[in-house]
């Protein structure tokens, strides 16, 4: 192997990398918050919502969980304009991530809700709580606490999956790596550096989510 590694370009192109990191973080943040919210709503529909809406949510969840993120992205960005729905690359990327995480977190949250004992509902009702109150305090919060580790891993998976949004020219970290390698012809080095950045992002995100879990659920009520 006679190849000489060259990382000189990092000094010239770090603003490009930084911008890419910013977009990846932004996509993860928006996708994470909205995706989990969508997931909680869908989990509510599937376990306690109106009966007619349940098959709709089930179909959505199964469809998303059994197709690749890349195809969901292409369908939203290239396919939907045929129906007159137009959006920018970033909007499409965000939408795809929200829809994707929504389906996965629906399944995760639902598992947490199912683990709640039926007697808990009756206990809530006997304390004079409304159905919504019972759902929020007695069912949802303990369920979220129970499944928080699984939910955290899913958010990390979605962050790593967001590398695919570079394919619709959303300017995330992978897009920055593609740009740099096209300018410097240092493909391996560009992807190697971005891989390390992704690894650092994943480890940081995991720690942040763990900390967030302790802040959100300070009292451990779930056994």
């Amino acid at each position, binding site marked *: *192997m006679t190849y000489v590694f060259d990382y000189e370009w990092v000094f010239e192109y770090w603003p490009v990398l930084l911008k890419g990191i910013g977009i990846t973080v932004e996509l993860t943040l928006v996708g994470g918050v909205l995706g989990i919210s969508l997931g909680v709503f869908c989990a509510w529909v599937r376990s306690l919502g109106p009966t007619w809406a349940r098959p709709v949510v089930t179909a959505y969840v199964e469809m998303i969980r059994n197709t*690749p993120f*890349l195809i969901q992205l*292409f*369908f939203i960005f290239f396919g939907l304009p045929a129906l007159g729905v137009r959006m920018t690359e970033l909007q499409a990327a965000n939408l795809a991530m929200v829809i994707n995480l929504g389906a996965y977190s629906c399944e995760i949250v639902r598992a947490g809700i199912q683990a709640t004992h039926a007697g808990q509902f009756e206990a809530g009702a006997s304390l004079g709580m409304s159905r919504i109150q019972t759902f929020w305090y007695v069912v949802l919060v303990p369920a979220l606490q129970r499944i928080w580790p699984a939910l955290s891993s899913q958010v990390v998976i979605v962050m790593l999956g967001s*590398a695919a949004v570079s394919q619709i020219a959303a300017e995330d970290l992978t897009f920055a*790596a593609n740009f740099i390698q096209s300018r410097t012809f240092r493909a391996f080095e560009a992807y190697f550096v971005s891989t390390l950045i992704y690894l650092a992002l994943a480890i940081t995100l995991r720690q942040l989510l763990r900390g967030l879990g302790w802040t959100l659920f300070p009292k451990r009520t779930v056994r």
Partner: protein
Amino acid sequence: MNDFTTWDIVRNLLLAARWTILLSIVSFIGGSAVAGLLLLLRIGKSKAGRVFARTYIEIFQGTPLLMQLFLAFFGLGLFGVDVPAWLAAGLALILWTAAFLTEIWRGCVESVTKGQWEASSSLGMGYLQQMRYVILPQALRVAVPPTVGFSVQVVKGTALTSIIGFVELSKAGTMVTNATFEPFTVYGVVALIYFALCWPLSKSSQILERKLNVAHRNH
């Protein structure tokens, strides 16, 4: 200009799906073999082996599969060989699959209660005998549903190989779109084919889980 009927689109996509299936099978089998070796290191007695397996898993689970594909594609190229896309795709997917399967299987081995290890060791069994006759047969029952479930991730993972130029279902979808200008239909059909491949796997994983009822067996 040629006109493309819907059947032309579907037929071409179905033909390309063969490569998705083939790559999935190769990745799954290769990944299982590597995962078996990693598992021995991960739960073995050597500290260096455990650290190696842990680091391997951390790296492959903590970076995007797309980046791993790029690195395999351009990294192999550094050795001066002209790397075909299928080779880089297969290599990256095998290594990626192995990381996840190792973690899944480790959980399964550790779910076998400590008493089983103690009981078998009190019968005078060595490590390999314990594994062969006591631990693995029990761990295997626990491992089947999540392993089948993970195979869905492998099939979906193959979609990313289109980006380094391997022509499978997703790449074919892009090519057919470029020829027909009907992205809605084409990507819709592509999604349906993926669904047809993945859904039976997801479903059988669920059914197996219920059938083996492993979650509550040790209580």
